[in-house]
């Protein structure tokens, strides 16, 4: 009698791939027949189990999400950091330009406003300024303005003021 069949040969016979000699041996050898029955029983059990839904694993309820999101979060943060480096090195000068533009605009608006809404012409303004100058200077010097009378009396020497005030 030939030696007993290997597990591989038993599986071949069970899968209808065995040779005639292997099948014949199986019919004659009680030990191989017993091993064959055990194999058939296991395969039946495997099939029946795998045909049914997969059982839930006990640790599932205790792990709601895990840490699978951590690598994604780190990658996203690194990407954001790398993407922002050029912008940080060369910040956009927009605020300064806006500021300088706004100051220019303000100055221009002030000039336009003064020109449009001025109620006196330039000569009047200059004349008024010239007439008021001696009084202002006198107020600053805590003294009296240099009028024509005082000039000729020798009390002051501001000829220009004496002439202006004399004309009043």
């Amino acid at each position, binding site marked *: 009698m030939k030696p007993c069949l290997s597990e591989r040969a038993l*599986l071949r016979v069970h899968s209808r791939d065995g040779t005639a000699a292997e099948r014949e041996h199986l019919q004659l050898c009680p030990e191989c027949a017993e091993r064959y029955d055990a194999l058939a029983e296991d395969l039946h059990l*495997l099939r029946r189990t795998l045909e*049914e*839904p*997969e059982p839930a694993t006990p640790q599932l309820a205790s792990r709601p999400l895990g840490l699978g999101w951590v690598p994604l979060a780190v990658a996203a943060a690194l990407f954001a950091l790398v993407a922002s480096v050029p912008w940080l090195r060369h910040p956009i000068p927009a605020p300064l330009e806006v500021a300088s533009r706004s100051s220019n605009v303000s100055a221009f608006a002030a000039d336009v406003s003064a020109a449009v809404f001025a109620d006196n012409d330039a000569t009047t303004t200059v004349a008024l300024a010239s007439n008021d100058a001696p009084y202002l200077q006198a107020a600053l010097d805590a003294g009296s303005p240099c009028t024509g009378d005082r000039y000729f009396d020798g009390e002051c020497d501001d000829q220009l003021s004496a002439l202006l005030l004399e004309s009043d």
Partner: protein
Amino acid sequence: MKVAANEPAEYDALYRLHHERVLRLCHLLLSDPDEAHDVTQEVFIKLFQARKTEERAMVWAAWLTRVAVNACRDRRRSGWWKWWRERHAEFIEADLPGTALTPEQAALSDERRRTIWQSFRELSARQQEVFVLRQLEGWSTEEVASTLGLSPGSIKRHLYRAVHHMRKKLRGRQ
């Protein structure tokens, strides 16, 4: 189109007849219920398209199995799926509907069933395919070899390794 008039009815009949089987097959090969549903849907879309163009007489059951196995393999090969599967295998397995067990399944302890499923998940993708087609679908070695593009000898080796591994785990638990 070959049978445009009665095509919807035939498609519906094929769908009703094979949908559950294809879904179970995809779930076995992918283990993720959502992925299994997606791939099953793809398979039946391909069936719908194939029925319009295929002129030969087809054994649609075998065709569906072959397309499903290939679709599952393609899905497993995609990099993101591997990444996701490795990190979320524990959660995926929980999302399964409970069904009434037969007296035989009831006799099996939950621990033994988990052991069997775990040992199946430990098999390589190819071993899972061979085991499912050979033992669960009942295909011959030549049919499996033709579908998977392997030699019959290679199919036998994959089947032996798969069965040996699962029996070893099963026996080790007992």
